[in-house]
């Protein structure tokens, strides 16, 4: 159906794609994988007409096409669901779904038709929790994702591009997405699926195309490749074991919570020990990030005990030797236009303390030494950006370090590096708490896993627990 040949693209003289071929057939789920910087997102934006290609041809049903604008691609039946939400929070569901192509009758927007069509699509997806007139900002994240999907479907898309669609979804919401994709496939719609999560690729895809450094490595039916082989194709080397080995030495209690709570959390009992990595699992909305923020002092506990003390602000948290590597690096972790140096020194400068002289050593320690210190961090890769955030906290020599989704959106190779660093820090005696939606990562890294449900501790599992056991606790089925 869609066939791209010899696609090439450069930005500001930097070659991002060269000679990429990609063919998609109707009713197929075609996964595109590759490390960050491999050119996946750029390729997808070319498919959708956001960027015109510098070289190569695109054919749709055998006819050559050239999209100068997203609108033209959409008129040809190509829709995209971006990794970041592309909705207007102040507008209604129907207004968002029909954004840019509102139906018109006698020169005026036909609101009735718009709302009717939206309601019909929502009905087809079995969605009745909200309606076309609801304002998007009042919907929970998962429902906003459904609005995105409805937006794509409303154009009668024949090809739907999904760019990391599960990034903001909790485990059970991913299941709904799987079903939805199944339904699309039945209708003969082709799906181009980009994901860092190999499990999803193997669950969903019929074929997979591997990109590396802007070129296509290969395209294979999913049955002819194993996860290990796929990783090797992506990074060009064998990563071997996923996770660094655990060391069983847990030291003294660094942080103790007893019956701690606030508006989102209740009766939390938790000990974090030196040298230990504690994993926090739970569904979206179970209070995982809220727990990290409460311990850190950003959204403080209002009841219960925390030893050595209960911080009432970020600064008090910092003073207690607590650091938080936030979930959203770009929005909450970094000042993107400032230099590496200014970012790593931010905490130290803010509180007027910290080890400023040792920054060079710290950068070396996280293997960021080759990066120029006056480089603006927005030019760094996701993995290196995460290391900058980490060094920012290491300047304070924290006693407790909280990681909220530390490897979200960074590529396979950099993930392993972050994992190694976390274990190194624990071995050096830091107490580490880690939140992750990726269960294999969480279980592989943690010395024990604390499962949250509805703002409470649902249970604690030892190292090496099964994914199933974690999910059962998280979901609240009879254990």
């Amino acid at each position, binding site marked *: 159906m869609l066939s791209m040949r010899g696609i090439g693209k450069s930005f500001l003289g930097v070659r991002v794609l060269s000679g990429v071929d990609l063919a998609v057939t109707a009713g197929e789920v075609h996964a595109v994988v590759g490390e960050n910087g491999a050119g996946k997102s750029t390729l997808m934006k070319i498919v959708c007409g956001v960027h015109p290609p510098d070289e190569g041809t695109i054919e749709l049903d055998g006819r050559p096409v050239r999209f100068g604008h*997203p609108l033209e691609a959409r008129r040809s039946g190509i829709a995209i669901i971006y990794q970041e939400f*592309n909705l207007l929070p102040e507008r209604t569901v129907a*207004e968002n779904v029909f954004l840019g192509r509102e139906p018109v009758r006698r020169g*005026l927007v036909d609101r009735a038709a718009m709302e009717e069509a939206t309601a019909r699509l929502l009905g087809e997806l079995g969605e009745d929790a909200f309606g076309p007139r609801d*304002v998007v900002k009042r919907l*929970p994240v998962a429902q906003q994702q459904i609005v995105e999907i409805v937006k794509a479907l409303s154009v009668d898309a024949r090809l739907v591009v999904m760019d990391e669609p599960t990034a903001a979804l*909790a485990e059970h919401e991913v299941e709904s997405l799987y079903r939805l994709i199944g339904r699309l496939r039945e209708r003969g719609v082709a799906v181009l699926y980009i994901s860092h999560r190999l499990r999803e690729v193997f669950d969903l895809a019929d074929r997979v195309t591997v990109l590396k450094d802007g070129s296509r490595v290969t395209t294979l039916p999913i049955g002819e490749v194993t996860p290990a082989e796929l990783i090797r194709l992506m990074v060009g080397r064998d990563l071997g074991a996923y996770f660094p080995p655990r060391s069983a030495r847990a030291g003294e209690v660094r942080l103790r919570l007893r019956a701690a709570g606030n508006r989102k959390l209740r009766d939390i009992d938790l000990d974090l020990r030196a040298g230990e990595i504690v994993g926090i699992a739970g*569904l*979206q909305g179970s209070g995982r990030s809220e727990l990290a923020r409460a311990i850190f002092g950003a959204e403080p506990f209002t009841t219960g005990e925390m030893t050595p003390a209960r911080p009432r602000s970020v600064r008090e948290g910092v003073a207690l030797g607590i650091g938080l590597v936030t979930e959203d690096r770009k929005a909450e972790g970094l000042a993107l236009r400032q230099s590496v140096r200014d970012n790593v020194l931010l905490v130290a400068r803010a509180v007027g303390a910290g080890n400023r002289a040792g920054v060079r050593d710290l950068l070396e320690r996280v293997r960021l030494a080759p990066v120029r210190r006056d480089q603006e961090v927005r030019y760094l890769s996701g993995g290196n950006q995460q290391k900058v955030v980490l060094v920012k906290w290491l300047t304070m020599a924290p006693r407790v370090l909280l990681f909220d989704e530390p490897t979200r959106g960074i590529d396979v190779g950099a993930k392993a590096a972050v994992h190694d660093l976390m274990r190194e820090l624990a071995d050096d005696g830091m107490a580490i708490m880690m939140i992750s939606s990726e269960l294999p990562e969480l279980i592989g890294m943690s010395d024990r896993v604390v499962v949250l449900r509805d703002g409470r501790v649902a249970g604690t599992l030892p190292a090496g627990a099964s994914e199933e056991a974690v999910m059962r606790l998280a*979901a609240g089925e009879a254990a």
Partner: protein
Amino acid sequence: MDLLTRARGPARGGLAAHLREPTQVLFLALLGLVAAGWVLVALDGGQFLTLESVVGIQQRSAALGIVAVGQTLVILAGSLDLSVAYLISLASLVAAEIMAGQDGNIGPAVAAVLAVSALVGLVNGLVITRLQVHAFIATLGVALIIRGALDHLYDGPAGRVPESFQVLGYSRIGPVPVSALLWAGVAVLAWLLLSRTRLGYRIYAVGGDEEVARLSGIRTGRVVVLAHVLCSVCAGVAGLLLAARLGAGAPTVGTDGGYDLESIAAVVLGGTALAGGKGGVAGTVGGVLLLAVLDSIFNQLEVNSFVKDVVRGVVIVVAVAVYARRTRGRRA
């Protein structure tokens, strides 16, 4: 897995939610102010809301109201226009000079004013979108350009507006001044534009999130340019109105009225977010009326005119603080 946490239902936009919108708050405040004015003026021994004062309020509101409606469009689109004050002066001069006291010239004069103001809007819009100059600087620069031309060519009032055109400034139909009708007409058109046309939807989209709009196939630059053209045309209409009222064109009529910053203040007072994408014409109308009623009360109480500036400043800041507080309350 679906039986797991089905996310909590959305807060539906019921009556309670609607009452929390800035526009409702504003109109409640307006009612309160009218009541307070009534009491205050009565205590002072006068009578508030006489035919005279109502007409006065409408008269005073009309010019600012028309400019503010235009300003609403550009602010909703995520831009702003600091050139309206000088454009108003320019429009009044263009009108009065071309009319030169002759009835027959009214048509060409109006056409010329609309063309000139549309051109200014086009320049504003193109400088912002094509040259990527921040709207603040772009429209300030255009304002300076117009100012220089005005100062160079004129020392004082010029041109003459024929009697028949002055009708626009002073006559009224029953208790309603023609100028107020003009304002109402402009406001209704803008409301229709925003709530019922594609351009209106796109103005909200571009102001709400330019990237989202672009990725949805909206030609964002064109929307911003059109919004600026419409805003400038509104300023041109206000210039016509002021020329009709003065009987001539004046190089300082726009700046004396402080229409640039006042119109922005009225829009924001009406609950439209300065960042764009949120708000509407109804709020702006309320904001302008509120400022006019305030003015009227002070006039009747014969308060020093400088106090008005002070109170006006306080009212604007307090109103926006109240909106900010409400938004935060809803989020938390």
